[in-house]
């Protein structure tokens, strides 16, 4: 009897917590979107930013955010997934595995500003590149990899043992089993993790302040040669991302419409993450269906 009452109370508490979370999140969303959406016009999205006049847009910053995200993911996903496979399937209990796990956790817990400082030291000063997209992407890679590794590992561990054992019992090698049985099964989980990581990359500012810089050269969107100075695809150019832009208009902007630009940029950021999120979910389920459909 008593335990049943406790159970009720506990359930009530959990519902309350969930309600608090939802309320909090809804409020934040409401705040960001209600303040930001009125600012978001086609013009805002397609005009370059201004450093001192009202009415600047976020065209370049939006592109930079997406581009840095893309480059980071291109580097992070293969590394992270392989690392996750290693941890889940190949790592033998022992000192080395423990050490690797410690490394992963250390990387994951690095303050982003420390990553930024490290990036400043290595990718900006020592390499002599200055502020670049690639420097920013590499800095982001540092704390993105652990997230991907953890997610991959968890996803692989959640694959039913029977699946794996059946494959191994057929005399198929471990690696082949991973490729053909485990990865397809774990794919949606990995994708979710990649989205999470993307969200962080997209909103990251501190690590990029010192690596990708606070400015963007004049870009010519007609120029798709990645080695040209003014090409948006050049990874050796400085790039101010949307998140950094919000920070910089608030800290050094002379523009009179700081609040509007910051609000608009925040809204765009949130919407971009939302779109991205939904798209990836949909993709994930489609791929999952495809891969797990019987031959």
């Amino acid at each position: 009897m008593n335990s049943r009452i406790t159970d009720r109370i506990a359930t009530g508490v959990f519902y309350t917590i969930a309600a608090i979370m939802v309320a909090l999140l809804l409020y934040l969303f409401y705040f960001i979107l209600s303040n930001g959406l009125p600012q978001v016009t086609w013009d805002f999205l397609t005009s370059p930013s201004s450093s001192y006049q009202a009415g600047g847009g976020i065209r370049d910053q939006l592109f930079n955010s997406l581009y840095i995200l893309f480059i980071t993911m291109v580097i992070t996903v293969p590394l992270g997934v392989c690392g996750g496979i290693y941890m889940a399937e190949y790592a033998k209990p022992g000192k080395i595995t423990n050490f690797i796990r410690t490394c992963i956790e250390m990387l994951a817990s690095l303050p982003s500003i420390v990553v930024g400082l490290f990036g400043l030291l290595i990718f900006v000063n020592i390499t002599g590149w200055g502020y670049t997209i690639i420097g920013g992407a590499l800095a982001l890679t540092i704390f993105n990899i652990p997230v991907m590794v953890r997610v991959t590992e968890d996803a692989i561990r959640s694959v039913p043992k029977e699946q794996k054992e059946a494959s191994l019992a057929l005399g198929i090698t471990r690696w082949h089993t991973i490729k053909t049985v485990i990865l397809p099964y774990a794919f949606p989980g990995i994708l979710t993790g990649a989205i999470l990581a993307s969200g962080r990359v997209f909103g990251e500012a501190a690590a990029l302040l010192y690596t990708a810089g606070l400015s963007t050269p004049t870009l010519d969107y007609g120029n798709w040669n990645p080695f040209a100075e003014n090409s948006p695809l050049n990874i050796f150019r400085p790039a101010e991302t949307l998140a950094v832009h919000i920070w910089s208009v608030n800290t050094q902007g002379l523009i009179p419409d700081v609040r509007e630009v910051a609000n608009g940029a925040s809204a765009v950021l949130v919407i971009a993450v939302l779109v991205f999120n939904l798209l990836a979910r949909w993709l994930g389920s489609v791929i999952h269906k495809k891969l797990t459909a019987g031959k």
Partner: protein
Amino acid sequence: MKKMKLSVLLAMFALVIGVLAACGGNAGGEETEGNTSGNSNSGGGEASETSIVVAGSSAMQPLVAAAAEQYKADNADADIQVQAGGSGAGLSQVQEGSIDIGNSDVFAEEKEGIDAGTLVDHQVAVVGMTAAINPKAGVDDLTKQQLIDIFTGKVTNWSEVGGEDQEITLVNRPDSSGTRDTFVKYALDGETPAEGITEDSSNTVKQIVADTDGAIGYLALSYFDDDTIVKAKIDGVEATNETIGSGDFPIWAYQHSYTNGEPEGLAKEFLDYMLSDEVQTTIVPEQGYVPMTDMKVERDAEGNITEK
């Protein structure tokens, strides 16, 4: 189908490595190019050199970026990258030769760890600043002594300087910031400010002063464009282009653009352009700076004022 998964993975990996390797090579190429432009002794780089990098003071970035935009409108092939990063970083980088022009809101001589001997100073504008006070304090004119007393914590209530009965809240700048440096030198006569909220961002400082009862901070003149904060007079003198130009209002600083050795090529052309009437009469006043042409006095790195 299933095998594709791995191949894609491997291909991506290969791509990354390949791209990095290629870019590494490319970076090497770029770097040598950068070195020739950064190295002032290379000589000869007249109009062939179409790309320069400017970095440094965040406060100056909008001004220089706007001038660069305008310059590029007339000279399509000139590529001027204006980055921020802070005065200290700008001076360090221009000294190392990794950038062409380093912006700073203090004299290079004042920064520790910089050998000002090799750097050439180009003063492109003057920034004036004054105390910003929350309107409810009821004070808009302070003597310099009162200002010092407030900022050193001797005076803690506005009623002591003829205002309302409100506690004073100080809003400071970070220790190494040029704005703080200028204010401490010329408004507080070098006295160390007492403890207070510290913010790097002028917009944030303005926000805090406007919202917090009894708050006082200091801001560049361009931020006094509405009545949410009070622009304090010092000893009865209001900060304007005229009073700063004549030397009557003491709190101002040059905005410096430093080059390593005498500038050449595009760097020189751009700096000349910055000092031309075209920029000094438009962008400079638009952004709330005092044009160099208004200055009837000049100041050296030690702070000695002389008539022009």
